[in-house]
């Protein structure tokens, strides 16, 4: 084989791979977003109802047996600033200008909750090599199994909300993420209870329910006329423990989680636009579906690699045998 041929061959191989991948880019579309499970349990966080009491944070730590984050010497209260190995949910504040008015974008402030959104088509589940993260078929909850986890933290890179958090400060750390209080040993949902945060929330800002119910409630709220009185349920939407009346704020006509990246089971509504509340720039198509589209085109049933291996084996053997030039020994 002449060098020219070799060069041609090398480039030709590349071209073939290009074609293969090009083809994959077409077929990548083949895997749509995962379907919404209407019966999945979820939560609706209404930023306008949140008073920033952090009861949800405290209750979450109690239910999940996690320690408070202490940073200052005061040691007076939990100083968690973001999700971490010690914090599964956290209330953050958006501030602008004088920060006088609640739920105003200009010169106002608003609260925002950070916790696992329990995606319908979750990146973390798609990315985890060892199936440590799974979608519970019945509840739609994304659970984590530390016994399977190898700690590669791919889930963290694959989560658009940066939710899974590794305990970097422990010798034998693990990933922590909200499992809707349904992990082994807690199992609140299986027992018919609601999540700890929804139970603790004094205003119903965190509301528990099925995704379907919650989406209906969210749509109802965003359609209300600002200033009208609405009777806000608290606790579990299917059997609210109480209600409270409050004038309707000026909701943005946007339910975060209805469609974003395939939708989420934890949804947010607010009177501040979500990019200001730190929500990521997501489209309707989930990254998981795109990634899996490529991956499956190239590797579905390992057919392509098997054929390639057969071909390569043949070529290599022929080359070694025929002119000995390729022989190694």
């Amino acid at each position: 084989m002449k060098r020219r041929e070799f060069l041609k061959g090398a480039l030709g191989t590349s071209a073939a791979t290009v074609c293969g991948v090009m083809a994959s880019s077409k077929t990548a579309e083949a895997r749509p977003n995962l379907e919404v499970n209407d019966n999945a349990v979820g939560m609706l966080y209404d930023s306008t109802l949140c008073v920033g009491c952090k009861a949800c944070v405290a209750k979450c730590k109690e239910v999940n047996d996690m320690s408070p984050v202490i940073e200052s010497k005061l040691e007076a209260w939990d100083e968690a600033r973001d999700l971490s190995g010690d914090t599964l949910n956290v209330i953050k504040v958006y501030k602008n200008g004088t920060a006088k008015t609640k739920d105003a974008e200009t010169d106002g402030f608003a609260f925002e909750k950070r916790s696992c959104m329990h995606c319908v088509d979750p990146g973390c589940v798609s990315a985890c090599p060892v199936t440590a993260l799974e979608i519970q078929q019945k509840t739609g909850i994304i659970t984590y199994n530390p016994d399977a986890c190898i700690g590669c933290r791919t889930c963290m890179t694959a989560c658009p909300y940066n939710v899974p958090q590794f305990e970097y400060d422990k010798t034998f750390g693990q990933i922590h993420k909200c499992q809707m209080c349904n992990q082994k040993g807690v199992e609140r949902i299986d027992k018919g209870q609601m999540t700890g945060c929804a139970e603790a929330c004094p205003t119903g800002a965190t509301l528990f329910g099925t995704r379907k119910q919650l989406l209906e409630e969210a749509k109802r709220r965003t359609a209300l006329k600002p200033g009208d009185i609405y009777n806000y349920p608290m606790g579990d939407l299917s059997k609210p423990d109480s209600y409270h009346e409050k004038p309707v704020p000026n909701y943005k006509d946007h339910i975060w989680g209805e469609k974003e990246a395939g939708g989420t089971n934890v949804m947010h509504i607010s009177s501040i636009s979500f990019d200001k509340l730190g929500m990521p720039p997501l489209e309707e198509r989930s990254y998981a579906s795109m990634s899996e589209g490529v991956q499956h085109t190239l590797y579905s049933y390992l057919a392509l690699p098997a054929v390639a291996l057969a071909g390569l084996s043949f070529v290599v053997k022929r080359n070694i045998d025929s002119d000995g030039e390729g022989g190694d020994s």
Partner: protein
Amino acid sequence: MAEQELDTGGFDFSEVEKRLGVTRRTFLKYCAGVAASLGLSTSSAVAMAKAIAAKPQMRPPVIWLHGQECTGPTESLLRSEQPSLEHLLLDMISLDYHQTLDTGAGHKVEELKKKSMKENHGKYLLVVEGAIPVKDDGVYCKIAGETMLHITKEAAEGAAAIVAFGSCASWGGVQSASPNPTGAKGTQAVLPGKPVVNIPGCPPNPANFLGTVLYFVTFGKLPPLDQQNRPKWAYGRLIHENCYRRPHFDAGRFATEFGDEGHKLGYCLYKLGCKGPETYNNCPSLEFNNVGGGVWPIGVGHPCFGCSEEGIGFNKPMFALANVETHTPPNSFPTIEDRQQDTGISPTAAALGGAAAGAAIGASLMAAKKVGNTPESDSGSDG
């Protein structure tokens, strides 16, 4: 300050000692305490003490009117702090007309009132207790055949200062709750243009009234007021900001029903409808009934319902949730951008990273030079 006796420049307090039945030391300590709670200096306390001890003829006359009310404010006054308020009050001011406390009865007293108002035109202090109904020309509250509306306007005419004592007098109070059957209004509402000091509360804390009157007696003017004409020193802060249960709110620990475990442990009452987060008053620091030891509404485990706050008390249902007006300390909330671990760039690390990259490049260039200098020993075969 309370322990150190004030320097009064040898002022003779023996007369006041006799009148009030307290020692000079107790009396001065009390004045210092009042001055401190009003946010005033030590010298103001001395001025106050002297004003109280001054001759009776210096006392401003007071006309005390009762509208639609329950006498709660007067009742709360009657159990005030040492030296007994009733003494101090009567000592500081000349109570020329008070319906509940007066000795006399009937039209005679009404005549006395009119006489006093005429004689002391422009000098007397008008205290209004209770709301003023304006519906149907104010017929729902009549005293001696005249409507409260008329009486108030008449009395306000020659008043040096007007104090609305209690929520009813301040903004209408309980009877102004929807549908406000009698058209009850606050004093200010029926006296447009006249400066009215509001001391809301249901009942109001007597110390807030006393402090205002003391200020008036001492300095001859009214204390600094907020936008709703309430003395700033008393109504400057939210109950929520001073509440002893606040740490529980900040930690998200709430009582969910009276007598539950959290309730017994003193958890925050927000979830039970506490309006502390939207009510301005000094109840947490003054408390009630002179008992001490946490005797005030929130102290005995029931939520504040915002009795002193217009638009909250009698307007929001008892168990409805409050809007949380402010959040202190504001920095206890992480911003959206706040992250848990943020180590930044250490200069050493930057130097080390740079050195490593530099070493790689340097070594490559060195090698390139060396390779270039190696004499060609084999031309090789290039097809």
